């Protein structure tokens, strides 16, 4: 064991001592999505020095000492942000020992930090990164006897050990039909638990003489909810039914500091004006159009378009993103919002700038002086046929290889190799 420990320590030291050097790049002739007031800039040349965007212009001359990346009119964009995922919390969903998404048998909830489970070396991180996603909101889910899933994080997808950008980024809460199973059996019980928890955290620490003194929460969980009660981090609340969304608006009216993001929000179009007025944010899936359950009987394909018209602050997600393979389809979901009538820029913002602002991420705009986090694509990023050709996160070039590309290359029919596959 000691040899192993020493070896591990040495490897860790090496990793710390030798960070990948920030390189200099000149990306020529790009169709640049800036996510700033400049919008989309055609024929853009981008000079990156020491990991920062040094210059953006047209007809610039590439310095001799930088690597030239010819975009040839192709798209360069800020990195895509997966606004809801379980990346790094699970290797193989069906294998319990690899799956830290929920804690079925735990008596705590909010105070459980997903960052303690997060593994940046999970192969799904590199598999997802190579599809243009540079950051992910990583959420635990609720289980057991609590509607609270715990505290989620935000990470970049560099796969580095220091890739978590916010350890305590939000609190996950499950309402709706799924929530009733966790709280006692009815929507009344989920709201009792939710209000009780908020009251406990509001009265923390005065109410707690002993560890179990809260109406609903333990001292430990009440303490973990305090940041959210003060509006310092958002509550991410999964809910779909219009009548339930109105109850959430009531909650926001009673506790004005709460920063509420509703996940799912399939029937949000029915109460869009109220959501906009209450400044409640929503994260919707533009593929949702089936009455998948009785919380979302009135799902419709143009939900996001109606929310946009009403002035609701929205992000686009793929709500089915439970499995590790799902986040890679985020651009497709945004693209389909466009196919159904949403403006391209709005759809793109909903998977980049909007979630970045909600979760306090920086460097999701491409402008002079900022650290470069960007993706060079071989086509329109919202087209299913497009893929990244180059990526920078915080100025560092990222590998676009992964376990999937290794398997692909081993078994590629283009390969002329007669050796057994294990030797290829």
């Amino acid at each position, binding site marked *: 064991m000691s040899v192993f420990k020493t070896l591990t320590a040495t490897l860790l030291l090496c990793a710390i001592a030798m960070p990948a050097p920030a390189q200099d790049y000149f990306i020529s002739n790009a169709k640049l999505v800036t996510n700033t007031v400049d919008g989309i800039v055609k024929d853009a040349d981008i000079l990156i020095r020491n990991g920062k965007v040094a210059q953006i212009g047209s007809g610039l001359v590439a310095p001799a000492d930088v690597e030239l990346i010819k975009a040839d009119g192709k798209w360069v964009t800020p990195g895509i942000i997966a606004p809801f995922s379980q990346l790094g919390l699970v290797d193989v969903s069906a294998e319990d020992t690899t799956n830290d998404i929920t804690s079925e048998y735990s008596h705590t909830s909010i105070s459980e930090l997903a960052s303690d489970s997060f593994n940046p070396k999970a192969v799904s991180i590199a598999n997802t990164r190579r599809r243009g996603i540079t950051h992910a909101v990583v959420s635990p889910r609720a289980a057991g006897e609590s509607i609270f899933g715990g505290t989620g994080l935000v990470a970049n997808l560099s796969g580095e050990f220091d890739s978590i950008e916010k350890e305590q980024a939000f609190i996950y809460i499950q309402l709706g039909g799924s929530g009733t199973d966790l709280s006692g059996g009815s929507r009344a019980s989920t709201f009792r638990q939710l209000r009780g928890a908020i009251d406990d955290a509001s009265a923390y620490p005065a109410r707690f003489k002993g560890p179990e003194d809260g109406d609903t929460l333990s001292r430990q969980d009440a303490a973990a909810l305090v940041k959210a009660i003060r509006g310092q981090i958002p509550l991410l609340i999964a809910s779909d039914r219009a009548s339930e969304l109105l109850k959430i608006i009531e909650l926001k009216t009673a506790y004005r500091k709460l920063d509420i993001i509703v996940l799912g929000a399939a029937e949000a179009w029915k109460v869009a004006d109220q959501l906009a007025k209450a400044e409640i944010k929503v994260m919707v899936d533009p593929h949702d159009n*089936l009455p998948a359950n009785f919380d979302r009987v009135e799902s419709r394909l143009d939900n996001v378009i109606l929310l946009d018209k009403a002035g609701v602050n929205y992000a686009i997600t793929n709500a089915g993103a439970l499995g590790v*393979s799902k986040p890679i389809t985020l651009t497709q979901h945004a693209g*389909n919002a466009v196919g159904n009538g949403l403006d391209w820029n709005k759809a793109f913002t909903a998977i980049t700038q909007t979630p970045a602002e909600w979760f306090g991420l920086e460097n999701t705009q491409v402008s002079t002086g900022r650290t470069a986090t960007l993706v060079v694509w071989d086509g329109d990023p919202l*087209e299913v046929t497009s893929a990244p050709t180059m990526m920078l996160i915080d100025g560092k070039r990222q590998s676009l290889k992964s376990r999937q590309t290794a398997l*692909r290359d081993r078994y590629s029919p283009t390969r002329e190799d007669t050796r057994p596959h294990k030797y290829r």
Partner: protein
Amino acid sequence: MIIWSMKNLRLTLSAAASIAFLGACGDNSDTKTTSDSDVAAPFASTYLPQPSETTLITNARIIDGTGQEIENASLLITDGKISAIGNNVTGDATLTIDANGRYVTPGIIDIHSHLGNYPTPSVRAHADGNEVTSPITSEVWAEHGVWPQDPGFDEALQGGVTTLHILPGSANLFGGRGVTLRNVASRSVQGMKFPDAPYTLKMACGENPKRVYGQKGGPGSRMGNVAGYRKNWIKAQDYQKKRAKGGDDFKRDLQLETLADVLDGKILVQMHCYRADEMVQILDIAKEFDYKVTTFHHAVEAYKIGDILKDNDTCAAMWADWHGFKMEAYDGILENVPFVHAAGACAMIHSDDQNNIQRLNQEVAKTWANGNRAGLNISKAEAWKWLSTNPATALGILDETGTLEVGKRADVVLWSADPFTTYARPEKVFIDGALHFDKESGLKPKSDFRLGYGEIK
């Protein structure tokens, strides 16, 4: 309003005749009986095409499903069938549609769907797709669990799906019979059944059966799975002999009847199987008992054995990018479909999902692009085979649909744009030449379930 013409009446008679197996289809040599009695097959198709006009679609870019893409082409539909296609088509049509350069393709066929047997809303009462009471349930039929009011059928139609195959779930080694449906509005599943399409048998490999039955008497391992297949094929061989012999002592056995029909080549095996090594073992079992595996479904590792699938004439039905959710899906890659295709095997897309079925063209576009990015050079027209041609082959209905060729059913989609882009949508969907979805006029089906819920103000 539907006006039933003489043509439909004739079709009624023809369908009734074929139901009774009187050789109305002009193939007297093949008695299609699936049981030993002379009675009509139960639950026979009552599907009748909707009335259609003689329709000429002009100025289209046609991907025909045979690997061809034809510009400035026309398509003529007469009596619900394709009567002419190409650059020099003329005909007296009562309806002419100028495609204005837009794409026209065959209707999409999804070989793996649970619409109707796992419908939305997905409440407990609706979970009718899996008879999870024994690992051997070849006696159950998917169609008996299909709810024709599943709103998912309506949405799939708007995604261009004209034919779909509903399977039992994958808990069991022998899951039961699958059924091929026309994606049409009907009060009964019989009214959706694809006339004379062969039945299929759903089988399952790997993790699911051993997980479900591991604590319920087995199988509890992949060894138990294989033993379970072989023991029951032995029983089926015995039954097959007794059935052929007949006599008063012979008693029908629903469970073995389906298996014996597989051995007789009348029922097509559709087998859920992920891992490459496991598929190769299944192919050996098929050789031992002299039956054919028509298609491996999900087949996440099919790309590792494309050559073996080709040699065995076995198809693979796959996702574009699902992987990683269980151990046997851990090696999924984004190039599975094109790699299997490039090996010369029969590859296709499938959904297994009520959302993905609405945009299978995008699923193909994804995997097609990834294949070409990995060094292949597959045309869009060739890749289209993954959406209609190869599924039709694997369901035994290629002589009726799956491509746009003269004489076939006019299952046709007119797209707003290139179906390989995210932004394209079906604008018109024809089934047997009749318009079933039309974006322009707002024609679309609406499930009973969706009645009575409020509309936008």
